[in-house]
């Protein structure tokens, strides 16, 4: 297994290199640049703007800029934010914990709710109840995250006043932080939860038809033992894979949710940086997201590998 993981990590290096190249071109290619923000300003002359571009190194040919950036990236120097001159790494690291916190909490909620729903509908529920859950999980997949966010703010923060409408809470007060976390985390969890529940449901239905489940029932084991010890244990193995594949969607969902709830994470950093054409910050943040995506697919592959040894030994490609 260790060898498999190492091999997968090694193939990630050329992939990351390719991604960085594509990202760099896509971000720098569109017309305009960071100096545009000052273009209308009366105190900034055309010469100033030209000097600004020169100082930022934006007049170099794109390949030269890329090699410079890459050299920095590898040695841990991700460049300097155009906004305040601070290192990009600092700007990102300052926002990253909030995003990670939001994502992990949502993931936890999603899994914790999806398992009972999926198992219940697969084993116990009457057709009617199953139908209702089917409709609800489908709606959960279809509803735009930002809209659920708006509705939650409107109802639970506005009308009922149960949760704050935004922000992250006082840094020294854990309770206030949890209070702020609850809204965005639930909103972000909804989509993943619905997807997980549908998946667990179908994989449970499949497993429940297996011979060994019938054997377990036949030898007189309690229903609960059969469902959880025998069936669910097998139905849940691919859950790791599912979580890995969910990561990219969770990240982009988190970005939108953060904007809705004024959650001070990567998402807000990215939207701010897009508006200001803060290239180094954008590159840094996007590379980080790409890294997390690759990590997610690694987790997914490890999940497959746990179930199917054929993949581990490299039979696949």
């Amino acid at each position, binding site marked *: 297994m260790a060898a498999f993981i190492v091999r997968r990590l090694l193939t990630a290096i050329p*992939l990351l290199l*390719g*991604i960085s190249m*594509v*990202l760099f071109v*896509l*971000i720098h290619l*569109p*017309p*305009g640049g960071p100096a545009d923000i000052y273009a209308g300003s009366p105190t900034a002359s055309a010469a100033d703007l030209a000097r600004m571009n020169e100082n930022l190194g934006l007049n170099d040919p794109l390949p030269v800029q890329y090699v410079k950036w890459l050299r920095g990236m590898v040695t841990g120097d991700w460049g300097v934010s155009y906004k305040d001159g601070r290192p990009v790494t600092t700007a990102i690291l300052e926002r990253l914990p909030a995003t990670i916190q939001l994502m992990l909490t949502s993931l936890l909620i999603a899994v914790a709710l999806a398992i009972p729903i999926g198992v219940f509908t697969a084993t116990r529920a009457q057709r009617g109840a199953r139908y209702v859950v*089917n*409709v609800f999980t*489908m*709606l959960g*997949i*279809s*509803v*735009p*995250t*930002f*809209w659920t966010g*708006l*509705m939650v*703010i*409107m109802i639970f923060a*506005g009308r009922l006043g149960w949760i704050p409408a935004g922000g992250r809470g006082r840094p020294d007060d854990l309770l206030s932080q949890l209070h702020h976390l609850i809204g965005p985390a639930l909103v972000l969890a909804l989509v993943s939860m619905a997807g997980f529940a549908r998946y667990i*449901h*179908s994989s449970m*239905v*499949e497993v429940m038809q297996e011979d060994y489940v019938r054997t377990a029932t036949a030898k007189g084991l309690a229903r609960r033992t059969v469902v959880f010890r025998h069936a669910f244990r097998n139905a849940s193995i691919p859950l790791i894979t599912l979580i890995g594949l969910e990561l*990219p969607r969770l*990240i*982009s969902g988190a*970005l*939108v949710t953060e*904007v*809705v709830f004024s959650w001070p994470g990567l998402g807000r950093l*990215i*939207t701010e940086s*897009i*508006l200001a*054409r803060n290239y180094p910050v*954008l590159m840094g*943040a*996007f590379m980080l*997201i*790409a890294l997390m*995506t*690759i990590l997610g*697919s690694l987790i997914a592959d490890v999940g497959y590998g746990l179930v199917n040894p054929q993949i581990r030994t490299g039979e696949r490609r």
Partner: protein
Amino acid sequence: MTTLQHPTSSTVADLVSLRQKPESIQAQVWRRFRRNPLALFGVTVLTLLALSALFAPWLAPYDPNAVNPYEALQPPNAAHWLGTDDLGRDVLSRLLFAGRVSLMVGLFTAFVAVIVGALLGAIAGYYGGLIDGFIARFIDLMLSLPVVPLALVFSAFVAITPLRLTLILAAVSWMGVARLVRGEFLKLRHAQFTEAARSIGAPNMRIIFVHLLPNAISPILVAATLLVAYAILIESSLSFLGFGIQPPTATWGNMLFNAQRYLRNAPWLAIFSGVVITLTVASINFVGDGLREAIDPRLKER
């Protein structure tokens, strides 16, 4: 074919049906699809939505962009069924016209993405070797790119029109179809009927499009359906963040972007556009799910 009938007459019916042509696969799929109430619900809603978008100019009670400050932020009433927004524009009219843009962007994104994906997947799967390695790596790379943020960057840096948005969205969503078609082609490139076609001198293009591609039509159809839903969701997210199609052209997403400032005073603004988006996307997903089950009935038991 045979319905519940008296045993003797059913055997007669069987004999009769034996002489008739066997039921085509399309008919089977349709028969199974018809029995799925959620899928039928989806088709109905989508038909209504499509018609209302098509006939928006005749259905809309007002000009969607007509500003009327004296009637700003009116709750739903007899004159404005769904109320008015901050500029006094009729919400119902705007929703109808926004449906044109949102549905068009969704449909065309799926269309372009399917063409690109099917073409690249077919080439990769059919020729294999170096070409396949190159395309497969490219698919992997595209799948690891942060898609939504990139789409954000582009729609922020480029003056966005519905056409450009469609191309941006298609550029980041063709990979699923490509993977699917590639897999199917890899499986079939050495199948007997492929070799047979090759042996009688059929050109590659003919084998790809006439012999192999039809085998992948069903999964492509399902994927395309879900792509429409995906594109509508992403479009609305972009517009909601303020980076999509710009006002005054209404889209469901930018109506929500506008609505968030009036959550307290005019909640109907946010409610209606969100409900329409959810209803549309859910209907498409119901249809996609129904199609999948109808095409592969083994899934039905799950």
